[in-house]
């Protein structure tokens, strides 16, 4: 329904990502996850700074599927103790390249910030 052009896209065309999209991608780097697990992981990654609601989450996922960053997965890692009907999402090859490119971009931003002496928090060591 919401498909856009499906020609090969260069990762750079999609940058910068919004924080929601970036952290959702990070959440599924290791394994496919379902919605609630993604939400919890994003909370963890950001120490609670970014809490997605259900509408924002699925709105993002919808657009990410349309632009080819993620795909619904048939793999169900926790299938043993999980509900069949849940929808799992996994990175596509494009998604993997995009999340790397975005991480690089952010790293460059951090370098620029440090070089101007505005980086004060402890957590952000190189």
């Amino acid at each position, binding site marked *: 329904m*919401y498909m856009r052009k499906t020609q090969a896209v260069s990762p750079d065309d999609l940058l910068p990502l919004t924080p929601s999209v970036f952290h959702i991608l990070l959440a599924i780097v290791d394994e496919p996850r379902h919605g*609630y697990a993604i939400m919890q992981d994003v909370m963890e990654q950001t120490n609670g700074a970014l809490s997605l*609601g*259900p509408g*924002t989450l699925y*709105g993002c996922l919808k657009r990410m599927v349309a632009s080819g960053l993620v795909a619904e997965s048939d793999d169900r890692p926790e299938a043993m103790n999980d509900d069949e009907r849940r929808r799992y999402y996994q990175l596509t090859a494009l998604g993997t390249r995009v999340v790397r490119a975005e991480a690089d971009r952010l790293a460059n931003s951090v370098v620029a910030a440090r070089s101007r002496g505005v980086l004060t928090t402890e957590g952000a060591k190189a």
Partner: protein
Amino acid sequence: MNIAPVIYRLLLYGYPREFRRDYGGEMQRIFREQYSDAAKTGNRARMRALMRLIARDWLRSALRERVDSVTHFISTARLSAPRGAVNEWALTLLIYLFASTTLVQAYVIPTGSMEGNLRVGDHMLVDKTAYGKAGALGRYIMPYREIQRGDIVAFRYPEDTKQTYVKRVIGLPGDRIRMSGKQVIRNGHPLIESYTQYIDPSLERDRDDFPLAPDRLTTPRGLDMFEHHLVNGEIVVPPGALFVLGDNRDNSLDSRYWGFVPRDYVVGKPLVVYWSFDAPTEDLESWNLAHIMDVGEHFFTKTRWERTLLVPRSAKAVEVGAR
């Protein structure tokens, strides 16, 4: 029974249909999980934070998805590019209006028959989807529940279907009902009803003992009930019907007088009181200039603020002697 998932289910109607169809189930599931996680901690601050998150999320993402679907619609319909914001907003607004009239209905309590729980002048929203009468599709998509004894229901008054009444369900099909000295006896078991109030200590035969015989207040449908459904001194509720009583038992015209409510006449379940204004019955039944001025002048003093967002609840009567 918790109200939060029900409200969230209704909120989903703020989203475009495809979005709801694709993700509504998952979103409800996530909400239930978040909600039960927050409830388990027993931490009220956490619960409030969750509610704030959900409200913010809904406002933002519902609008976003609406706009998205309208833009998408316009671009696929090959109209010459999106025609500016006005169109989008107008359509969005239309959809909201449509959704709000098919899913919830605003209703005001004009009489005191439910006094004790619902007061004259309570303006409330009725959830029209609660009992799944929204066609086969609605029944399939949305969780719904059967009407149970003790539920408060809004329904079209059988003697005049233009009016909506609110009462409590006492008898389901097959139930045998009688009253003896204000005491309701259902299927042979006296009920202990926590939700009633009695304002008249004296006994009045036709009101407090039931079913005796039709009296001057009995309507044609009431007569039919006395005639065809009276078995051994008890009223037996027929299939597809409900027996309802007002909580303000001594001052309520209900199934005792006008008979059963056909199941199909049930409009829905009262959801929440959004505004309670102290006004006389006549003013609530039909708006008039005096009432409008009254509201304008006394909005702040006559609004019963403490009743805002009050949720009318179902309540189970205890059946004495039942297993």
